[in-house]
């Protein structure tokens, strides 16, 4: 069946709510459907106790989700914009991520924080960021970013069932994307990337909305005889270096593409790991495509001038191949 990203997320939540009584949803406006409509109808279907609205209290609701997870619930918390996750940070970083470790394994925090990121035409500086690198830097947090509706369905379910605190980062521009999905396909595991397109000449590593750009770039480059292999990371932390290594050992050239600011972004970590673990496979330096070092502006001309996309990936690959 063909569903949009939003519909498929809703379906996944619906099925998990039905499957496991420990699953509870909470967040600002979630009972009413959530800011993007993902949770629409779920409160009516599963009851007001299972799908709960909260006031605008990111710190408290993140803490509550964590405390409930310590006591056997499986909360799925919605933080409307990743930009607001800054208010959740103390709990996520100092409590949720560390509880298992600090308690010497006595306690676990099986919770999912659903949020969304990315620029989408005029949302401006405080509603357009991609902050995944911050969370990928915290031991104990798992960070997942699906690249399409089909991916989101399986990854959300896997995240809910994992047993660790997961930051599940959706992308605004993907919300209306439609895709044929197979609900009976096996769930993709957390911690494993996928090869979205095979190729021999250059590896392009991407995640979230950039995977689509990478695939478009690959299509265009194929017409010039350049075979691009696209890797969709799926899990940003911890990183599946094995899949990356297999690809780089074949192509010897890498471009990493993400919407987040390039400086200090996840591409920097991946690049460093490739440089140190796969040095002898490299035929050229690792290249990163990312946003220049600036907040996202409001005016569309300015926003477009900043955001990385398909042409940037194409250009990066062409420069590598020479």
């Amino acid at each position, binding site marked *: 069946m063909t569903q949009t990203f939003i519909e498929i997320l809703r379906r996944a939540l619906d099925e998990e709510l039905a499957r496991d009584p420990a699953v*509870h949803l909470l967040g600002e406006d979630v009972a009413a459907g959530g800011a993007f409509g993902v949770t629409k109808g779920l409160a009516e279907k599963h009851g007001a*106790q299972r799908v*709960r609205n*909260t*006031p605008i*209290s990111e*710190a*408290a*609701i*993140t*803490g*509550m*989700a*964590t*405390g*409930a*997870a*310590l*006591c*056997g*619930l499986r*909360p799925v918390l919605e933080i409307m914009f990743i930009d607001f996750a800054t208010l959740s940070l*103390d*709990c996520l970083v*100092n*409590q949720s991520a560390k*509880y*298992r*470790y*600090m*308690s*010497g*394994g*006595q*306690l*676990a925090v*099986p919770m999912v924080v659903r949020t969304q990121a990315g620029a989408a035409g005029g949302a401006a500086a405080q509603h357009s960021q991609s902050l995944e690198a911050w969370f990928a830097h915290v*031991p*104990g947090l*798992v960070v997942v970013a699906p690249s399409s509706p089909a991916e989101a369905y399986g990854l959300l379910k896997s995240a809910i069932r*994992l*047993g*660790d605190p997961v930051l599940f980062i959706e992308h605004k521009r993907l919300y209306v994307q439609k895709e044929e999905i197979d609900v009976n396909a096996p769930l993709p595991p*957390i*911690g494993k990337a996928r090869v979205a397109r095979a190729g021999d000449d250059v590896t392009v590593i991407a995640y979230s909305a950039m995977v689509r750009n990478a695939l478009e770039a690959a299509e265009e480059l194929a017409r010039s005889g350049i075979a691009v292999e696209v890797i969709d990371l799926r899990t940003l*932390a*911890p*990183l*599946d*270096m*094995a899949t990356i290594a297999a690809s780089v050992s074949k192509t010897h050239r890498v471009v990493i593409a993400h919407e987040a600011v390039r400086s200090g972004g996840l591409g920097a*970590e991946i690049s460093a*790991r490739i440089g140190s673990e796969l040095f002898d496979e490299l035929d050229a330096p690792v290249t990163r495509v990312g946003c220049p070092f600036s907040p996202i502006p409001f005016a569309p001309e300015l926003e477009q001038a900043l955001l990385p996309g398909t042409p940037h990936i194409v250009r990066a690959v062409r420069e590598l191949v020479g």
Partner: protein
Amino acid sequence: MKNRAAPTSSDLKQMYRALWRIRTFEGQVQRLAAAGEVLGFPHLSTGQEAVAVGVCAHLTREDTLFTSHRGHGHTLAKGADVQATFAEILGRDGGLCRGRGGSMHLVDAANGVLGATGVVGGNLPLAAGAAWAAQATGKTTVSVVFFGDGATGAGVFHETVNLAVLWKLPVLFVCENNGYAEFTSREEHSNVKHVSAFAAPYGMPAKTIDGNDLPAVYAAAGDAIASLRRGDGPYLLECMTYRMAGHFVGDAQQYRSKEELAAMKEKCPIERLKRHLLGLGVADAELDAIGEEARQEVLQAVERARAEARPDPATVLQYVYSAPSLAAISG
């Protein structure tokens, strides 16, 4: 000892023992910290024992307790093993958290001690969440969170209280108001003298009591917890008390006058409970014996803890993730 309106003499003697247990324990932490054997920043609850003991007397094993960086007393009062708790403070492998938490992060899940946090106020929403879990699963267990008056300066205190009231969560907020936040006296950081004043605007019942009067703590806590179990919603109990040691071990207490300190020693909860029990006709010698037994129990547990093995560095990466396969690729 569950929710009796008035404690029996036997209950009181048990609580007297519990006070001495905590007092001795904290004394040992202080001694070994001064000697360099306890590392980091241990925070002592010397002088505040009656709050821990009086409240925990009404809690079952399944009730959940959250505390702050000053949490040794609460942890012991909830039933944690003395040796395992001290071993954790010493960073031993046999400690509650296998040496990974230390003084400020004591967890004893089997006894419902779900954690202590070093970030002031961070434990408040966790306790509310635990209460939510109990409510969502139809249990009658409650959640108790201990915090100092300084935590009311954190936004998350207000967010949590608001939410707890809205959702009628069975969480007991116990504020140990010792008049100081870090090194600043209360007058300097809040216009609101009593923390219980914060409750009314949110629609939550609250009470301020003398936290060093164990029978008073016991009575107030009993009422509050009974109310929680009935499903009446959260409750705030403000216990006025006094910190007899500094903010943390090593703190030179420059900020208090000597007269202040002497006055408070007069108000020591152990002394006061002893006077109360003597008034009830319990023999001095019996009380001394109870105190001595508690002290010996702790001293021996401390010695055993000191002899325990240290953690194996090779295990340092255990417990980061649920699955070893995730830890293996975490770089």
